[in-house]
């Protein structure tokens, strides 16, 4: 694992303050922060694993489990929320069989909540990967998810 990340580490040799940046790069590369990755980062900075984990777990941006192939994001920002975002989320949860923040067992989907995509006029909004699905209702949610589930 250390070798796999060596390229990232190389750029930050001697920079003690770069823990978060390095963690971001590692996550970018691996999709999440694995135990081995945390241990590699700890070794690089000569810090303890628990300290690196402490830093990483403080921030919402870091994930400790692998993400699914498709990232489903439901907006629960103010505009979406008042237009029933919570119901959209619940439907997504039910159809994917996971809670928000989770990943399906087959690693096909991850479900996250986000706060505002900046297209409040089209609320409620749901994203699958980079595709924005707007003015959602419950049946549209089911339909979109089914479409992705059906793909091979």
């Amino acid at each position, binding site marked *: 694992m250390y070798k796999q990340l060596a390229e990232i580490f190389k750029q930050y040799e001697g920079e003690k303050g770069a823990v978060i940046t390095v963690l971001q790069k590692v996550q970018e590369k691996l999709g999440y922060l694995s135990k081995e990755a945390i*241990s590699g980062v700890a070794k690089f900075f000569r810090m303890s694993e628990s*300290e690196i984990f*402490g830093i990483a777990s403080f921030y919402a941006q870091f994930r400790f489990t692998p993400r699914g192939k498709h990232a489903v994001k439901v907006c629960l920002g103010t505009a979406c929320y008042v237009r029933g975002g919570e119901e959209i989320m619940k439907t997504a949860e039910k159809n994917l069989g996971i809670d928000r923040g989770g990943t399906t067992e087959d690693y096909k989907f991850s479900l996250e909540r986000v706060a505002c995509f900046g297209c409040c006029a089209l609320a409620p909004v749901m994203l699958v990967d980079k595709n924005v699905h707007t003015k959602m209702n419950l049946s549209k949610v089911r339909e979109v998810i089914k479409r992705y589930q059906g793909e091979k």
Partner: protein
Amino acid sequence: MVTLKIDGMKVTVRKLSTVLDAAKKLDIPIPTLCHHPELSPFGGCRLCIVEVQGMARPATACTTIAKEGMIVTTTSPYLEKLRKTILELLLSDHPNDCMVCERAGDCTLQELAYFYNIRENRFVGEKRPFIKKDENPFVERSMEKCILCGQCVRVCDEIQGVGAIDFAYKGFNTRVCASYEKDLNCEFCGQCVAVCPTGALTGKMWAHKGRQKDIEQVDTVCPYCGCGCNLTLHVRRNEIIRVSSKKDTINEGWLCMKGRFGYGFINSDERLTKPLIRTAPKKHSADSGQWTNPPNNPPTPPLAKGGEGGFERGGNGGVDSSLLTPHSSLFREVSWEEALNFVAKRLGEIKERYGADSIGGLSSARCTNEENYLFQKFMRAVIGTNNVDNCVRYCHSSTFAGLASVFGSGAMTNSVPEIENHDVIFVIGSNTTETHPIIGLKMKKAVKNGAELIIADPRRIELVRFAKIWLQHRPGTDVALLNSIMHVIVKEDLIDKKFIEERTEGFESFKQSLAEYTPEEGERITGVPKEDIIKVALLYGNAVRPGIYYTMGITQHSHGTENVYAIANLALMTGNLGRESTGVNPLRGQNNVQGATDMGCIPDFYPGYQKVNIPGIKQKFEMAWGVKLSDKVGLTATEIINAAFKGKLKASYIMGENPVLSDPDVNHTIKALGKLDFLVVQDIFMTETAELADVVLPAACFAEKDGTFTNTARRIQRVRKAVEPPGEAKEDSWIIMELANLFGYKMRYNYIGEVFHEAGKAWPAIAGITYGRIEKIGLQWPCPTLDHPGTLYLFKGGFPRGKAAFSTIRYRPSEELPDNEYPFLLSTGRQLFQYHTGSMTRKIDAINKVSPEAYIEIHPDDAKQLGVNDGDTVKVSSRRGSIDIKVLISERPLKGMTFIPFHFKEAAANVLTSSVLDPIARIPELKVCAVKIEPIHQI
């Protein structure tokens, strides 16, 4: 200094002191939960808030620096209201299960809730759920009781230097955990448990054994390594239920895993409780003699994969049946009267028939000074021989032979508290953090204070993480390494000419001898890059307060004494002796190996290093003891075994030693002991040695008697009786006295302190020490008079022997180096969790859980070449024998080198080791021998 006013009282404190420090000086109580004097200020609990005139809001006393003229108020209705609110908030998320909490009565949070009378909570709400998933056998974590004071996080990082835990997540979900919320997998020192102010962290093994009621606390000294940590035993109904340590002790309340959790052996069911006399005929089966994979079940079946008796392996030696039988079929239980009469009769007969010198005694570094004094007195005055030795032979006889002849004393020159003030620490051949954990902590603290740490060790030991330079020299090349360092020191003119002139002799010829040890030559022999040799020479040569620390890596060689001489030369030429935090420090491996040696349990010296073959001294002791004494220097421990093997020694009295496992070449030792006409073993357990005995006498352990231990830094400290011995087990001192009396030699003391007093009369260096003076804190010898404060460091102003002599030492290779047939170098040693032959630590389930079995450390490259994987079983053989053992692939040893800890009887490292002796000190070469490794292909 700054002066400030707290609650109307003036106080002057040092600059950069905190308001909390100042209040403490005035004895004004300020409540705290996250503060610990040895840890960095945290300011997290906010309970220590005070009002400072001129500051708009209350400030935390623990993080506010005292300033000149400050006016501070520590209590007011406003502050109390805030404090109460803080407590209510803390308690809003607390289970409040004090009824069943292990810490009730000893919990800061509970105390504060009581003082602030918090009954109902205004803030009751959501609680953090925690799922306990601790499998580790030591630390119980009930994190729902955690108040996030962070003391455990800081102690683990700042004191222990491990960082096993930290804060994770944020806000309401913040918790203290290991990375990924894994179970703890650390050194299990329990420092976190010691500092936790609530019931969040407790010891697993003390659960439901008793809290505060009916608990008696007894202060004593740890029975494990030579650090001499002060322990407080918590006793309930004649059982030790917990161990703690006080903050105002030499170890500042810090302990290692063995000290804190390693007390289970005291209450073990396996303790010897009755005297035993052998009924089964002695099988000289040892002659057929292979030490084999062990006898009776090992303490815990270690991770036996597949469930099939992992130890009954074919091929590598059949199990010796005499060792397999439970001891009830070998011995019968007898009364003390019968046992002692039998011992006296047999020893008497043998003395009569073969002479006193046909009997040899091995004393114990685990026993007290008083018992060691009596033991050697018994051997010398009652039996009439100087054949008495202790395990110092196997660890530091070369130190003694080396340092005593150069300086006039072979003890540590400095004391433990001085360690933190070194500016350079040179550790050579000592895995300090595992073998002397609390001294290891001091070294880490010194590094934190800015000291440069130099490590010379063939293995990547834990201290390497803290080191400025690590010299990974080949095992056994210490002389070449040290000589080339000294070569550079001479070349760079970093020698202390005044010191050499005034206090040493023989420098010039010694200097010549260094000429050939250029850094290049050093690199060739040791494998250490010459640049590093030069760097170390400059570091040590320029240091103001350097300390050298070494242990078995230096001493346990066939040239161990020469290694020690080389170290002495290094300190002498740089004048680094006789000052505070400056000196040469051999760390002693056992709790009282210093004391056993001081007390004369060595064949050439009476108590206090007074030679047995100097007529005047002999006369003095003849007067004191009222009998004629022998002036013949006795046999050393290693020679006792050899003499037994040759049939010259007929009987042996072994107190608290287990030479079968601790001596090199187990098969040889078993054969030797099997040849004795009579063997008495006095121990707390049926050790491998006791199994060979004719009579086994059950002894009391450290917690069951009064006396003193002398730690590695010459500090004599009180050992106190906390519980009664099991069954009919007796104190060693009682046994020796009874035996002496049966021989018609009067040994009567009203209480054990009288023995110490008698030793003091024989040896002036401890004449000023009385039990009264060391009631609370021990004293370091020399302490010749009752008003003498003890000696912090040695050789201030001169050496006892006058001028110290340089010794010309040339590098010579170890006796048995790898060759084609035995291509690997084997080194043996200790590991953190176990202790010596395991007769104590392996009785403790919790310890066996984290350290279940023996292993051989093999470098990854070698493992690849051998085609073995982690956890595979291999057969390791030397010219002396072979064992089957699990592989641990590790980057700790050098390529071509292997390491086996010697604690495990089922894969006894000493089956393999060579019994080649150092010609001067007679110490065996346990650190270097040649072995071959063969994979065992399991069917």
